[in-house]
């Protein structure tokens, strides 16, 4: 029998932006098993419901994660609005959709950059992040914040956008669409990139289904699931397809996310085109009494929000189930049989967001 050894990986590690620890059981250079241990970023955020009332909790929910912060605030608001039977005005729905897609855009660009950094293509990393800054600029212009926006509230949104802002968003979309072309070409055609991604960490459709994977990670293995198709906010009135791939390797995950970049650009354009006029929020009276489940599609996959209120300003329970947690099982499966040198890359391909996972 070959000699087995255990190599600890993390929590502080150059390729990991966030702390997670893996015990890798290796035989020569091949991984036999990966055992994750989490909890480094656990804050106990859900317990804050006892100390903050349901309006203040919007800002806490946004800080579940700084990358998909808009989505978390949005999911929480949707859940409370569902309990209270609040109908959000059309303009607020469209604005939420636009901001949500802008967040997806910046999140996917961030990921593409980190992936490039993961396989040692520093130039590509910087290019992706340079484009990402343009998205952040319009987010700052329209919401006032770069990563944490705080524009959601129960019953609508806090800020309205005017024509100049919309023009700036459209202008930015045109610009980055052009600038993305050479970058996408590098990811798709460059031999050195493809040699690091092709056939690495294959996850079959059956495995992805059995392990309950979510988001682009599952879609790259051929699972057609996208919560946006359920039609929350304004997604029901906009035209887009679910992007999938059948290959299931690292390149497929990259390809799916690149496809979603252009999809987001198209969704934002449609939403700006159709943006209705009117109020951006409705007044909300009373306290939430009852419970609700909300499923939304975060940049990393399906996220579930559960909120239970008992008629007091303090809700009884808030629970978030995040996509990265669902994908960790899939990650351990893809790591089996991989080369030790590919571990960092494979962890990146699920687009891990540890602070979501541990809250």
């Amino acid at each position, binding site marked *: 029998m070959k000699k087995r050894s255990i190599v600890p990986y993390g*929590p*502080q*590690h*150059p*390729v990991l*932006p*966030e*702390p997670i620890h893996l015990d890798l059981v290796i035989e020569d250079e091949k991984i036999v098993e990966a055992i994750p241990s989490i*909890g*480094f*970023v*656990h*804050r*106990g*955020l859900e*317990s*804050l419901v006892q*100390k903050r009332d349901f309006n203040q909790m919007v*800002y*806490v929910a946004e*800080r*579940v*994660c*700084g*990358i998909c*912060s808009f989505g978390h605030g949005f999911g929480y608001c949707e859940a409370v609005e569902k309990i209270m039977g609040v109908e959000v005005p059309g303009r607020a729905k469209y604005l939420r959709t636009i901001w949500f897609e802008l967040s997806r855009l910046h999140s996917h660009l*961030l990921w593409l950059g980190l992936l490039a950094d993961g396989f040692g293509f520093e130039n590509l990393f*910087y290019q992706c*992040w*340079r484009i*990402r*800054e343009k998205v*952040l600029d319009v987010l700052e212009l329209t919401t006032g*914040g*770069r*990563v*944490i926006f705080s524009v959601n509230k129960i019953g609508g949104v806090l800020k309205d956008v005017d024509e100049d802002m919309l023009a700036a968003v459209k202008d930015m979309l045109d610009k980055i669409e052009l600038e993305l072309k050479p970058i996408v070409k590098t990811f798709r055609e460059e031999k050195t990139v493809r040699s690091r991604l092709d056939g690495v960490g294959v996850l079959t459709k059956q495995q992805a289904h059995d392990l309950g994977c979510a988001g682009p990670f599952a879609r790259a293995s051929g699972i057609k699931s996208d919560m946006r198709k359920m039609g929350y906010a304004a997604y029901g009135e906009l035209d887009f397809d679910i992007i999938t791939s059948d290959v299931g390797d690292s390149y497929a995950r990259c390809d799916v996310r690149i496809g979603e970049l252009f999809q987001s650009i198209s969704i934002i354009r449609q939403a700006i085109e159709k943006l209705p006029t009117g109020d951006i929020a409705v007044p909300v009276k009373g306290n939430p009494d009852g419970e609700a489940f909300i499923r939304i599609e975060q940049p990393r996959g399906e996220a579930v929000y559960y909120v239970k209120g008992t008629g007091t300003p303090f809700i009884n329970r808030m629970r978030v189930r995040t996509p990265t947690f669902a994908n960790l099982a899939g990650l351990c499966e893809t790591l089996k049989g991989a080369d030790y040198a590919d571990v960092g890359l494979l962890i990146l391909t699920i687009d891990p*967001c540890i*602070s979501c996972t541990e809250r």
Partner: protein
Amino acid sequence: MYKVKKSPWVLHYDGSSCNGCDIEVLACLTPVYDAERFGIVNTGDPMQADILLITGGINSQNEAVVKQLYDQMPRPKVVVAVGVCACTGGIFKDCYNILGGADKVIPVDIYVPGCAARPQAIIDGIVQAVELFEKRLEKHKAYVKKEKEA
């Protein structure tokens, strides 16, 4: 060798941040903000680092990790707490698992407020850290020289 000026190396550790400050720190290193023009280099190895950028508060799980990272860094060293979470615990201060800011376990020299801290503020923090590091380096050199002579 004593005449050579040293570029401080920066280590970034994510305590229990929400990622907001985390990606802003990373954004500072990209061409738009380019913090590296102040002569710093980003590293992943605590043994080679001079400045520790820490985001997020301290919880029971990462307490030991942060302490260990700090101990591994060679002297002299400077610690910068980025974001209100790392300064005081911030919005999560009342959570059961948050012990407080980074200064609960390691000495912090520079506090960068903000939630999330803006890149401009982070760059300012880094610049101050570089200055402080140079001062400390001088002191350290004088100390080493004195030790040698004694």
